[in-house]
């Protein structure tokens, strides 16, 4: 999946969490929670949607890195380039 596709997937998920917010309203470099007024329940639902669409189960310890839309794109792009630790080693 390209970065643009990841971005589109993220925006689609966000539009389901906060239907009143349009993609054009989101500044990709600014703090996501401040811009669209999402609480911890919304954020958890965002993570659940992304697990369904991107197949990435984000551990809680990584939540702080997902501060902006750009940071989210970076994070999921990296996860795809290097899928989660192989089962056998």
């Amino acid at each position, binding site marked *: 999946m390209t970065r643009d596709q990841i971005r589109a997937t993220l925006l689609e998920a966000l*539009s389901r969490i906060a239907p009143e917010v*349009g993609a054009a309203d989101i500044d990709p470099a600014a703090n996501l929670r401040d811009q669209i007024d999402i609480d911890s*329940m919304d954020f*958890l*639902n965002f*993570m659940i949607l992304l*697990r369904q669409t991107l197949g990435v189960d984000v*551990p*809680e310890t990584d939540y702080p890195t997902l501060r902006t839309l750009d940071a989210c794109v970076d994070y999921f792009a990296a996860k795809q380039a290097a899928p989660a630790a192989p089962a056998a080693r």
Partner: protein
Amino acid sequence: MPMTTLDTAGAAGTANAFRMPSLGADMEFGTLVRWHAAPGDRVARGAVIAEVETEKGVFSVESPVDGVVAELNVAPGTKVPVGTVLATFGEAPRVAAAPQIPPTPTPEAESVLTPRLRASPVARRRAAELGIDLAALWHDARDHAITLAEVERAAGRAAPAPVTPELPAPTPSAPPAGDARLAMRRAVAAAVSRANRDIPHYYLSTPVSLRRALDWLRDRNAVSPVDQRILPAALLLKAVATALREFPELNGFYTEGAFQPAPAVHLGVAISLRTGGLIAPAIHDADGKTVGEIMEALRDLVRRAREGGLRGSEMTDATITVTNLGDEGVDTVLGVIYPPQVALVGFGRIAERPWADAGMLGVHPVVTATLAADHRATDGHYGGRFLAAIDRLLQAPEAM
């Protein structure tokens, strides 16, 4: 019962009125959005028979009785005061001619709710202002809630000047947005004024270390897939529900000059709506649920509070309310009790604080738990022991 005739119980005895329910102390009007039953339908008590919209969303309202719908008195789209007769029930004389099992909604929420039109509250409001029929948009939206943008787009197609709708298509239930907002504030003002006038509140507050609770949650969440993770709020709710078993005098209603304990713990959860406003639907039988089940119920409640689909009963049968303003960043919440309830538990933000424990000073995540309680039902000593019990339970989360 065999063939009913008019004189077995008398028409007045069997006829029952279904009235516009009060879905919260601050509700004065409701708009009948849709009927799920028609005259002649036999409906079971608890089956969803209508959808009602208030400033706070669309609610599925259940039938108060087992019976046959005799007449629908209010047409969809009509806004009426609380208490207005919406429909009448009765054993119609021609009941034998009616089909035995008419297609009434099933009591299961899911089967009724699945095909429901979904739209964000702001989209609904805008559509009402603009006179846009959401049902027409719903076909295009299919798998997501109708957004404000889609409503605006539809308005652009339908009307030449959507930005300044001086003459919106006349929908009887749609006052201008400013009026609706004002009306909501006024209704809230009336409700809280009543609560503050009638209920002699007392307030208690205590800081609670959540170090053990959050460590336990972190370890549990680390090995759980994201859809089974638990938020601290669910653990706090569980602690309240469990503590209420020991302190039943905080769980129930003050009516007719006396406190009536409730047999079950229906935990009202204050949920802020994305468009402003607050509702407090109930998690039913919270004391019998595990932390995981409470989390599931909470997620479901928040989703339906924001997308529509809460049931009338969820809005009216909470036996105590919990408000959690932690996400808003405040430390302490001293709330207003929802009458006829007798207590409201508040939790503020979970923040790191210096914490002295066993002669050592450390840094703990701490939440301030508060209790606003009705002095007619309990006194401060009782309330203080209740908060202490919540604290105690949160120090052993695995045991809850």
